């Protein structure tokens, strides 16, 4: 580890810190303010969009109606995306004449993008037409992020709304939330940053692939496409699905160290800002900074571990007697070790899943960090919206444990946490490992599972564990040696992604529904404060204990044992 490496990491975090409050305040105004930004310009557009959608009445919805709207939106989106892939050979903007995507792969990809996961069993440049990428995949990049944001807002409203005399039952309107997220937040940022990305060398064209003769006389074909417009929302929406197979390692998809920095900021900026928005909604910004601090502590632990591990030489490369300045297998020279370790941490803390280096080639403990980040439930800033609702479930657990310790009914923001909320929170917590460990166990013992592995020995187990973790956590990054484009993997991962998204959103919204109507109890001497350092520590402990207890046995058979075997020079 070097000083300059750490200054990259710290300058990234400093920029994030600077952006959190202004963007958080902006988001508050967009979703909760009496007037929205630029009312003369965007106000009429918002009204037209809602009229076209058929939701111009902006009627407040109960948790069931809100969930129903989200599920309907996702189902229809998935059907459209599936159809687009199956019919892409008949549609325009396909200069390479790419054929229809096969049914299992199209199902996997549709599930993946609707669930904000963007796991990719395909290589973009050889599978998806420009139309599929732009109209199908990039579209879902926008709206799946907007939908996640909606769920976070609904849960936040559940905790923070003060019921009037006749009580409160509603959590906002899903269509208004999605429309506003798209119009006021995602689209304007995407447009501006896309142009910056092009200025740095990112592609933005509809030309056929460029055939040329290299300086030595060989043929080279450069894949082309509308990359920059998709790239921004891939990061900003914590989607992570690359235009090209190599994702943000591809020089056309992430050309310079500067675009690399901006991409990482785009991943974290909305999840970080939402903690401030949440604090404003709670009427106490400290409530938001507590979440931000807990997330930051876990982020720094992860990046320090990943950077330290990747600064070590690669054991297999050591046999060539070369000077290793860290592990450079699967990394780009322009980023080197620190910017690769930082990117890997950021992309798996948030449920983004874009990569600028190949996690499969990381040293064992370097690869452990992304895996653990995801297994902690994507709450370290997390996905757009998903990070906030995930950490709020952890808050419910932490408050409950604190309540047990002081012997009082647990309460949060003046509202009592009771057995119904605890049952729903536990459902949320348990669905996650059920999918990951259950499916990994199946894949590890059947030929359809293990025949797709690229690496042998414990690293092979890590490959499949990583796949189901990534799918269920809606991350989408991969130990990419795994050949996931088989019927077994496409279908099992498709189900893991849908389960990890929607089976967890529904309990979260149910908690919102049961919290929103609860009476607010005034703060008393026995109230456990949730806006200070003590609670931050408790929250971090709960996140770590829940994740570690669940996954430590599996991790010890994968990356941890591999670490010792690599140290002993063992290869498979």
């Amino acid at each position, binding site marked *: 580890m070097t000083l300059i490496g750490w200054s*990259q990491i710290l300058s990234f975090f400093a920029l994030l810190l600077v952006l959190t409050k202004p963007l958080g305040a902006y988001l508050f105004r967009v979703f909760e303010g009496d007037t929205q930004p630029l009312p003369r310009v965007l106000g009429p557009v918002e009204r037209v969009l809602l009229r076209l959608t058929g939701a111009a009445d902006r009627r407040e919805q109960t948790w069931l109606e809100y969930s129903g709207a989200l599920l309907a939106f996702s189902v229809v989106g998935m059907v459209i995306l599936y159809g687009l892939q199956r019919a892409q050979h008949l549609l325009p903007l396909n200069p390479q004449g790419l054929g229809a995507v096969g049914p299992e792969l199209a199902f996997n990809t549709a599930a993946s993008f609707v669930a904000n996961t963007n796991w990719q069993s395909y290589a973009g440049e050889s599978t998806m037409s420009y139309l599929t990428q732009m109209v199908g995949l990039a579209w879902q990049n926008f709206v799946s992020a907007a939908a996640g944001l909606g769920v976070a807002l609904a849960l936040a409203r559940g905790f923070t709304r003060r019921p009037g005399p006749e009580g409160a039952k509603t959590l906002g309107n899903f269509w208004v939330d999605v429309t506003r997220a798209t119009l006021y937040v995602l689209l304007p940022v995407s447009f501006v940053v896309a142009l910056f990305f092009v200025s740095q060398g990112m592609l933005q064209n509809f030309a056929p692939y460029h055939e040329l003769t290299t300086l030595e006389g060989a043929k080279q074909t450069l894949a082309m496409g509308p990359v920059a417009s998709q790239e921004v929302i891939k990061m900003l929406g914590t989607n992570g699905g690359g235009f090209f197979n190599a994702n943000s390692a591809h020089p056309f998809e992430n050309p310079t160290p500067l675009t690399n920095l901006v991409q990482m900021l785009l991943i974290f900026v909305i999840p970080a800002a939402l903690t401030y928005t949440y604090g404003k909604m709670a009427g106490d910004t400290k409530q938001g900074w507590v979440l931000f601090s807990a997330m930051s502590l876990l982020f720094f632990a992860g990046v320090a571990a990943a950077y330290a591990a990747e600064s070590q030489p690669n054991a297999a490369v050591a046999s060539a007697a070369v000077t290793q300045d860290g592990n450079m297998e699967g990394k780009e020279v322009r980023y080197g070790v620190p910017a690769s370790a930082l990117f890997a941490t950021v992309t798996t803390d948030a449920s983004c899943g874009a990569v600028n280096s190949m996690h499969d080639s990381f040293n064992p403990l370097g690869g452990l960090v992304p895996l653990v980040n995801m297994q902690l439930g994507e709450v370290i800033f997390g996905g757009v919206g998903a990070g906030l609702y995930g950490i709020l479930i952890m808050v419910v657990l932490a408050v409950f444990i604190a309540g047990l310790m002081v012997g009082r009914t647990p309460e949060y923001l003046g509202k009592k946490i009771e057995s119904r909320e605890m049952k729903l929170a536990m459902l949320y917590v348990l669905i996650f490992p059920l999918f990951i460990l259950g499916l990994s166990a199946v894949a590890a013992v059947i030929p359809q599972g293990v025949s797709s592995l690229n690496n042998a020995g414990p*690293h092979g187990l890590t490959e499949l564990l990583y796949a189901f973790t990534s799918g269920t956590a809606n991350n989408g990054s991969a130990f990419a040696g795994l050949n996931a484009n088989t019927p077994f993997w496409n279908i099992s991962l498709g189900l893991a992604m849908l389960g990890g998204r929607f089976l967890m959103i529904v309990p979260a919204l149910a908690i919102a529904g049961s919290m929103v109507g609860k009476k607010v109890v005034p703060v008393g001497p026995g109230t456990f404060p949730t806006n200070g350092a003590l609670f931050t520590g408790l929250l971090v402990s709960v996140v770590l204990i829940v994740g570690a207890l669940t996954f430590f046995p599996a991790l010890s058979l994968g990356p941890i044992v591999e670490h010792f075997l690599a140290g002993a020079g063992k290869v498979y």
Partner: protein
Amino acid sequence: MVSTLVIALRACVVTLVLTGVLYPLAVTGVAQVLFPHEARGSLVKDEQGRVVGSALIGQGFSQPGYFQPRPSAAGAGYDAAASSGSNLGPTSQKLKDRVTEEAARLRRENPDAQGPMPADLVTTSASGLDPHLSPEAVRWQAVRVARARGVAAERVLALVDTYVEGRTLGVLGEPRVNVLLLNLAMDRQFGRPSRPPSPPMGAIAPAAGGIGLP
């Protein structure tokens, strides 16, 4: 239930047109006006005006008179329509064999190279299209390149120094050299290397001139 599905369908159409059609078309239109060179792939030409590659995408070099890039796992090597890393882990026999073989080849072809071999010469990049090498990995090859071209190593090293890109703002990324741009500069300064086997696209006389940017 049915009414929710109808609204969902309408919401999908509205957002699809807005974010999937209008937005990318607007970005493309503005980008093609403001940054046409970058939007079309940052193509570089040789002194004859022939497009020989992209400034951002690595390409294979095997002649001794050219600096050679990192090994590539993209297709058969530097296939810019099939980007990929090797995805081999640190306990992989395949990786161990590959780097051992690659290091042996490099030592054979660079018998007079000074100092230890930098690891980026034997490791594949994440994309398989990495256009860069570390400055150390370029300098390590300089004696071979100079000898193949019949010029003094000091002159080659001096040219290399002018092609070292530093960290952005002094902090971001790593120092690096773009291999294609360096090789083009070598051709401009010292002429095309004499090529032992398989001449490509016709004989080309060396000439002075800058890299043509379309």
